[in-house]
């Protein structure tokens, strides 16, 4: 794995971890109980994908998936700003879900062509689960596509998708505080 491959895997892993966290905030409060189950399960999948990707990079860099996920500073995360926003409106959450799944599908398609068979294999495995996420996103898109609140959310969020990965919103810092508080409560190198 070369450095640019490792960097792009980290970008995806960070996207999936942060989005998984944000989506999981809907657990227990989604608009329908069945949706609660479905969306929580999608959130859990994303974190699972992040874990698998971190593991691949961690092996290459001689570190661990946990250290990559939780022991970096907020400004070291390479996720897109789209995923870090706390979106407590359902139509915005679905707009993000729709935008993200489309972009993620393109990215996975490229990774599946990687010459590194481990990367290509992992991308194919992740994509099999993402197929369900895309179906779920499409179902909501079809339902909401004519709602002005939804189309406005799409327009507002779309620029964040291509907005670069160097800058973050303050919401990532807040999320980082919560996400890493347990690990930071113990000295570095603690065995959990």
């Amino acid at each position, binding site marked *: 794995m070369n450095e640019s491959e490792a960097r792009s895997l980290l970008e995806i892993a960070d996207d999936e971890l942060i989005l998984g966290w944000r989506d999981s905030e809907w657990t227990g409060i989604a608009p329908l109980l069945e949706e609660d189950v*479905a969306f929580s399960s999608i959130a859990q999948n994303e974190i699972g994908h992040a874990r698998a990707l971190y593991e691949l990079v961690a092996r290459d860099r001689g570190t661990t998936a946990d250290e990559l996920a939780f022991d970096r500073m907020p400004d070291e995360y390479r996720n897109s700003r789209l995923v870090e926003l706390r979106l407590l409106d359902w139509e915005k959450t679905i707009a993000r879900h729709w935008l993200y799944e489309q972009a993620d599908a393109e990215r996975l398609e490229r990774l599946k062509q990687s010459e590194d068979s481990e990367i290509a294999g992992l991308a194919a495995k992740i994509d099999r689960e993402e197929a369900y996420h895309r179906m779920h996103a499409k*179902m909501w898109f079809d339902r909401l596509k004519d709602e002005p609140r939804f189309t406005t959310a799409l327009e507002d969020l779309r620029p964040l998708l291509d907005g670069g990965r160097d800058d973050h919103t303050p919401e990532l810092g807040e999320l980082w505080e919560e996400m890493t508080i347990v690990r930071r409560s113990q000295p570095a190198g603690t065995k959990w």
Partner: protein
Amino acid sequence: MIYEVFRQERKGQPFQHAGSVEAPDHAFADVYAREQYGRRGESTALWVVPREAIVEVEEFVDELNRNYHRVDGYSLKAKLKEARERVGSALVARDR
């Protein structure tokens, strides 16, 4: 709306009732049924059916009154016990 979900574990096997999902329409029922009963390799196919579409039949008329065809009320346990006792007492009588 409630949808009943039937799942087929392997090709060729009968579909069995798996449970139900609540969804506003067919498209949502499809996705929710996959989530609950299909997307982890546990099924090869699902039938997702609005509960209203199911015709339930539960009262049966015994038109010909041929209750001698039925075995209810016939306790095999009691009959066996009786038979065992008969044989047992016959053996005792023979040994005498």
